[in-house]
């Protein structure tokens, strides 16, 4: 087998591995990207850039079990970059779920849907880093240490961001929608 063939085979194997990862993990990563951005189209853009950067670094990602963490960190960094562009700061999330957005579960009761809406609105109003903390902590179910590592911040910052987020929920979600108050 010649060198050219050998390189081709390795490249093909690499692409096949990446394709397998893309197929298996894209829906889950898109969900995380959506929660991080609050916008379906922005989530796809962020995910596309992040996966492209993963592709470029694919040979360097030695621990395949940590690939999701790697992509999540790229996504967070991309979002931070996005939010620091002046034109992007002028955009505001809306209460209306645009076409193509995932829909809240239709089977939950009305008060829970109402609380979901209020809670989601407050989470979306958090600064990008704080939102990333709560998404990784309470959606991805990462520990404080894992969240800190993923975001490159201290455990203390993770704790304080979570505490502030919860305080915001307590203050801003109507009392009759607080957990445990459902009828």
């Amino acid at each position: 087998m010649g060198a050219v063939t050998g390189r081709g085979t390795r490249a093909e194997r690499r692409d096949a591995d990446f394709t397998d990862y893309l197929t298996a993990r894209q829906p889950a990563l898109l969900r995380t990207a959506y929660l991080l951005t609050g916008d379906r189209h922005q989530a796809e853009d962020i995910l596309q850039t992040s996966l492209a950067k993963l592709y470029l670094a694919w040979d360097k990602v030695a621990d395949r079990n940590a690939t999701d963490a790697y992509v999540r960190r790229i996504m967070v960094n991309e979002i931070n970059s996005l939010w620091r562009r002046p034109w992007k700061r002028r955009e505001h999330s809306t209460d209306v779920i645009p076409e193509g957005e995932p829909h809240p579960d239709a089977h939950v009761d009305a008060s829970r849907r109402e609380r979901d809406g209020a809670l989601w609105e407050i989470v979306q109003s958090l600064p990008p880093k704080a939102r990333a903390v709560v998404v990784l902590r309470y959606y991805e179910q990462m520990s404080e240490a894992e969240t800190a590592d993923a975001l490159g911040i201290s455990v203390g910052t993770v704790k304080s961001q979570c505490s502030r987020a919860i305080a915001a929920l307590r203050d801003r979600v109507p009392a009759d929608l607080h957990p445990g108050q459902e009828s």
Partner: protein
Amino acid sequence: MNRPTGPDGSEWEHAMSDTFDRRVRDLRESPLSFDAVTTTARRIRRRRQAAVAGGVIAVAAAITPVALIAVDRDDARSGELPPATTTPEVDRPDSGIDVGVPLIEGDTLTVDGTAYDLPSVSYRAAALLGDRILAYRTVREGPNQGDGVVEVIEDGIVTDAWQKTTPMIVSDSGQTVAFRMADGELMTVWDDDQVGMGSDFPPDAFPVAITGGPNCYEVADGCTVVFTDPGAGVFTADSHGITDTFAGDALAARDAWSSDDGARGLVTVLRQSGTAGAACSGIWDVRANEYAFTTCDYVVESIAPDGRHVIATDLYADGPGPTWFAVLDLKGNEVARYAPESGFVGRTVWEDPANIVASVFDGARWHLIRQPIDSGSLEEITSSDDGDEIDAAYYPQ
């Protein structure tokens, strides 16, 4: 599952988890194809390469694409990913180290109090140039062991590299770096640009210091690079293509300084001794074309940012390093001295005209200290259990 709980607020934590789950429960799509992702990847790679290549097409062939880099995995932290971090202007963690010079500590580069991730712990020189880091390390194992590598680091990932380089030097401003490439070309890099400054130099000569800049194009700021040519002496090469030899008895250059207007220039050198076995050194005044002073009692090292003092160390240091450093004025008079109670001094750099930052090993721990030159009020900036006699915990730049 590692569902977070807590005595206070755990119901809100559960509520958030449930809300997030419900919010995305129906989002099960895979909108991105392999082709779409790789098309974006090619665009990113072109952008990165364009940023690195700048206008110097002639030297582009020496830049190794990331996919071809033979990564020295043994140098990297075992099992860890290269950290994906942000561009410098985005939200970065505060390093917590209050030091006025760039500092490499393990796999972190601190610049102006902000921490930037490095892909491994093996870098010994690094500079933040615009939105990327250029960092130098040597390959520690394998067939290329001992080779120097200058790597371009973006988002915490090595995106390009120059292989088989001389050690990378960084200007006092931290804005320009220089090194010789494998083909002998003297490469200077700053912000998002670079220019080769010629290759017609002795094959073993290596750059020691760079002044001027930050833009090394002849039509812009221009730079002057000081070389050591082992066994032959010292010389400078500038952006006009002029090389100058000076200090005929010099063996090696240690540092260089120039005034902001470029009118004054100083170079610290090691020089031939008058007596057998004794090494001497001195400060060469470029404009006067003579030594400002010479000494056989010290080895003079780096020059203060204002050009008024110089750090000097132990002439006969043995073992891992000198046990003290001193500060001399430009007449060779000692104005300050620092000696750790035990252990030795690692790297010393000027933080500003009045303060020196040094890494010091006490036999068990590395310390980063600040020594004002006008008083004895030493200040410990931080300390670490990492490192040993060979690999320091701190590399102030």
